[in-house]
C-alpha cells in the first residue's frame, strides 16, 4: 500500500509540473504523515543534508566547469577538422565526421548537449550543402551527441557512481567500448545513407601530413581526457581531484594555447556551474531521503518478488530496466532519470546477480537514447534549434538511427563482456 502511494504521489507531483526536488521531498514526507510511519522529520531532513555532504560530489561542478571551458570557441572546430581528415573520404563520410567528432568531443566535454551544439552548429549546414536531408542531418547530430555521456568522462555516470557507491574509475572504463559501439553503429547508418542516397559517395583521402597537422591542432584538447582518465586509472588522483586538474588544465589551454577564453568570463562561468550543480545536488539530497524510506519499507525486495513472479532470470530484470528507462527517457533528462531509479534498481540488480558497474553502463546508455527521443529530448531540441527543422519532423527521419541505437543498447545490455572486459583488463 505504501509503495503504491509513494509511486502515485511521485508520478503525480512530477508529471503535474512540480520541480523535482520538492516533488521527491513531498513523496518522502507525505507517506510518513498519511500512514503515521513514526519517523521524525529531523531524521528525514538530516538525510537531505547528509545526501549533499559527501566530499566527492565536488567533482560534479568541477567537471561542469571543465566541460564548459572546452566547449567554447574553436575547440569544436578543430575537432571537426581532424575528424574530417580521418573519416571524410568514406561513403557517408560527412555523416561519419559528425559521429567521429562527437565521440572525440564526448571525451573532452562529457556533455551530450555541448557535443550536439558544438558539432551541429558547423556540420548541419555542411551536410545540407552536400545534399543530405536536413532532418536526417539534425537527427544524426542529436543522436551522435549523446555518445558524449557514454564515453568517459561522463557526468551521469559520475552521479550514478556517487549515488550507488560504485567505483567511478570502473564505470569510466566500462563506458569506453559501449561508446565506441554506439559510434560504429551510427557510422554504419551514415555509410548506408551516403551510399544509397548518392549524396555522399566518398572522396579523396587526405595526405598523412594533413591528417597529422589536423591532429596537432586538437592535441591540447585531446590531452584533457588523457589527463583525467590516466590520473584516475593510475590511482594518482581521485575523480574529484581529476576534475580540479581538468579545470586548471582547461583554463590554461583555453587562455594561453587556443586563446578562446577571456578570464573576465570566469566569475559568471563559476556561478552558472555552481547553480547548475546545486540544482542536481539538492535532487541527490532529496533522493537520499526517498532512498532511506524505500530501504526502510523494503521496496526493492517487493520489486524483486514482483519480477521473480514472471522469471528469476536476470535478463527479465534487465529488460524491465530497459523498458522503464526508455519510457522515462521520453519525458525526463538523464540525470533525474538516473537519480530516481538507481536507488530502486541497484539493490534489485544485486539480488539478480547483475554487476552494479554493468547496470550503470546500461542505465547511462538507456538515458542517452532518451535524450534524442521526443517529446522531451534535449539534444533533439538543440538540433532542431540549429537546423530550423521541427522536432517531430527530425524524429521521422531518424528511423535508422533509432534502430542502430536500440541494437547497440541491446548488445550492451545482454552481452556484459562489452562493458566489463575493459574493467577486467585494467583491474
Amino acid at each position, binding site marked *: 500500500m505504501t509503495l503504491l502511494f509513494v509511486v502515485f504521489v511521485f508520478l503525480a507531483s512530477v508529471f*503535474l*509540473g512540480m520541480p523535482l526536488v520538492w516533488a521527491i521531498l513531498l513523496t518522502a514526507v507525505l507517506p510518513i504523515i498519511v500512514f503515521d510511519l513514526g519517523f521524525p522529520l529531523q531524521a528525514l531532513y538530516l538525510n537531505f543534508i547528509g545526501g549533499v555532504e559527501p566530499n566527492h560530489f565536488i567533482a560534479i561542478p568541477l567537471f561542469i566547469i571543465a566541460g564548459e571551458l572546452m566547449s567554447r570557441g574553436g575547440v569544436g572546430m578543430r575537432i571537426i577538422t581532424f575528424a574530417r581528415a580521418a573519416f571524410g573520404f568514406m561513403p557517408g563520410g560527412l555523416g561519419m565526421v559528425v559521429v567521429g567528432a562527437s565521440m572525440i568531443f564526448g571525451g573532452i566535454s562529457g556533455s551530450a548537449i555541448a557535443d550536439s551544439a558544438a558539432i551541429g552548429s558547423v556540420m548541419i549546414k555542411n551536410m545540407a550543402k552536400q545534399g543530405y536531408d536536413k532532418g536526417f542531418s539534425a537527427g544524426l547530430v542529436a543522436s551522435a551527441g549523446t555518445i558524449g555521456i557514454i564515453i568517459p568522462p561522463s*557526468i551521469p555516470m559520475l552521479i550514478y557512481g556517487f549515488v550507488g557507491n560504485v567505483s567511478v574509475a570502473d564505470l569510466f572504463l566500462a563506458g569506453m567500448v559501449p561508446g565506441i559501439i554506439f559510434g560504429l553503429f551510427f557510422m554504419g547508418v551514415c555509410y548506408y545513407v551516403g551510399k544509397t542516397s548518392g549524396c555522399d559517395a566518398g572522396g579523396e583521402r587526405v595526405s598523412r601530413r594533413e591528417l597529422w597537422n589536423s591532429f596537432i591542432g586538437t592535441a591540447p584538447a585531446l590531452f584533457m581526457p588523457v589527463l583525467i582518465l590516466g590520473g584516475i586509472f593510475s590511482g594518482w588522483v581521485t575523480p574529484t581531484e581529476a576534475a580540479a586538474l581538468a579545470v586548471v588544465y582547461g583554463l590554461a589551454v583555453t587562455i594561453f594555447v587556443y586563446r578562446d577564453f577571456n578570464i573576465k568570463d570566469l566569475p559568471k562561468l563559476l556561478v552558472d556551474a555552481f547553480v547548475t550543480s546545486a*540544482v542536481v545536488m*539538492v535532487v541527490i539530497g532529496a533522493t537520499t531521503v526517498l532512498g532511506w524510506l524505500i530501504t526502510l519499507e523494503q521496496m526493492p525486495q517487493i520489486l524483486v518478488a514482483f519480477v521473480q513472479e514472471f522469471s528469476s532470470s536476470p535478463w527479465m530484470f534487465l529488460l524491465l530496466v530497459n523498458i522503464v528507462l526508455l519510457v522515462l527517457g521520453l519525458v525526463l533528462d538523464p540525470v533525474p532519470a538516473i537519480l530516481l531509479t538507481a536507488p530502486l534498481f541497484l539493490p534489485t540488480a544485486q539480488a539478480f546477480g547483475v554487476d552494479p558497474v554493468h547496470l550503470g553502463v546500461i542505465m547511462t546508455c538507456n538515458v542517452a537514447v532518451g535524450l534524442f527521443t521526443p517529446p522531451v529530448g534535449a539534444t533533439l531540441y538543440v538540433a532542431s534549434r540549429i537546423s530550423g527543422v521541427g522536432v517531430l519532423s527530425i524524429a521521422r527521419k531518424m528511423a535508422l538511427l533509432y534502430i542502430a541505437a536500440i541494437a547497440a543498447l541491446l548488445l550492451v545490455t545482454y552481452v556484459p563482456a562489452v562493458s566489463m572486459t575493459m574493467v577486467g583488463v585494467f583491474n
Partner: protein
Amino acid sequence: MDFRPIYPVGLVWLSKLIDFALMAGGASIVILVFTNASLRGFAGFDLAWSLEVTAFLLLWVTFLGCAAAVARGAHMRVTEIVETLLPQTAQLWLTRIIDVAIIVLLISLIYTGYSISSHTWAQKTTVLYWPVGLLYASMPVGMALSLIFHLYNVGVEIFAPHLIKDNLSPHHNDGADLEDLS
C-alpha cells in the same frame, strides 16, 4: 523563467550577494582541491583541514545555489505534459496548488533545519573544531532564501502578471541550465 529582471532593488542585491558567495566559494573549492592534489602528488603530504573546509563550502554553495536556482526559475521540472494536456485555467489552478505545497515544504525545512542546526551547534568538527551546526545551518539558510524568492515569484504571478509579460521572455535565462549535465 528567470525572475531576476523584475526583482526590486533589495532582491536584486540579495541575488547578487548569493552569486558572489557562489563565485567565491566555487573558486575556493577549485583552488583547495587542486592545491591538495598537487601537494600530495609532488610534496608527499596533504592539508588535513582541506577536507573539512571543502565539505563546509560544498554544503553552503549547494543550498545557496538552490536559492539562486529559485530566482532563476532553474529547478528541474517536467512542464510538457501539463502544457499539452490541460486547459489554461486548470494549469493556473494547478500552479497555485503546487506553489502552496512548496511554501509548506520550505517552511517545514526551515523550521526542522533550524532545530537540527541548533542541536548540533555544540558538536565540533574533528580538525578545525568548527561547530557542526554551522555546516547544517546551510540548509535552513538556503531554504529561507529560496522561500523569499519563491514568495516574490508567486506574488508577481498572482498580483502583477503584466510585469512578467512586459519584462520576461520564457526563454530568457542566463542562469543555470541543466543542459550542461546531459
